[in-house]
């Protein structure tokens, strides 16, 4: 059999036909569909809504995971007062350890506090019988 070559053949048409006047009323049909879609679009959106609500619920739950985790964590955490008591009575932290952990901000704060207490310093000194001891230190 002779080899078939597309370019040697006369152009082969697809052979597809349309019903007569098909294109005459196509636009009317399409426009009708568009109008229908615009009016009774409810089922489609309803379904879409369900999906979006479900998606929203998933997102909310996902966002809640860290909150739930934190909630559990905080409830187990020690409150400040307990911690302070523990540190001052139970641990072997001393002044020097505390001083080492101070940063500039803390020191500025301390300075302010000291300034306020300046006025009472005299009273303390006057009332303190061991003043010499304090000076020598």
């Amino acid at each position, binding site marked *: *059999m*002779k*080899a*078939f*070559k*597309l370019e040697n*053949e006369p152009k*082969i*048409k*697809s*052979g*597809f*036909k*349309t*019903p007569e006047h*098909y*294109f005459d009323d*196509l*636009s009317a*049909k*399409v*426009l009708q*569909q*568009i109008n229908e*879609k615009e009016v009774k679009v409810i089922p489609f959106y309803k379904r879409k809504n369900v999906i979006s609500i479900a998606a929203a619920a998933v997102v909310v739950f996902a966002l809640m995971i860290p909150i739930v985790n934190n909630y559990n964590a905080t409830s187990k955490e020690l409150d400040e007062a307990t911690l302070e008591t523990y540190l001052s009575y139970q641990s072997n932290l001393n002044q020097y350890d505390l001083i080492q952990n101070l940063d500039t901000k803390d020191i500025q704060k301390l300075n302010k506090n000291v300034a306020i207490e300046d006025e009472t310093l005299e009273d303390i000194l006057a009332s303190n019988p061991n003043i010499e001891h304090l000076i020598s230190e």
Partner: protein
Amino acid sequence: MTDEKEFIQELLNPKTQNAAFQKLLSDYQKPLYSHIRNIVLNHDDADDVLQNTFVKVFQYLKNFKGESKLFSWMYRIATNEALTFLNQKAKLSGLTSEALQTKTIENLKSDIYFDGDEIQIKLQKAIITLPEKQQLVFKMKYFEELKYEEIAEILGTSVGALKASYHHAVKKIELYVTSN
């Protein structure tokens, strides 16, 4: 291009929308019909897909950014609609899309809207042996006589790759027709 921008504005403006959409329909219905018909093969399916395509075009027009030409954007929607339709139809009938296409081609012989003889049927049978992309390229180039540049815009591939695809498709089809 500015004409096209104006036309898109007309399509979006509620006042001019109807007239503009009518024009769009009358300009594109025939080429888009042949494009879809070449993919889905029978008239009733092509009719369904074409109407859906225009409805989608209308719905998504406000999202059309003008990055591509209106022409290629509409062809792209039509192609996607037609391929999705075929896949759904195959799924519903429990066939692979190849088996479905074979069946559709068999049915063409008795289709009153098909005016072809043996060679047309043989050519269609040869086409379905090709991978999907090559099928599309062949149909768009050979039957619809679109330019490579246009096909490239529609399918989002380079002209070079298209030429290669078309060349492969032609070779395989010739081989099929010769040996069958």
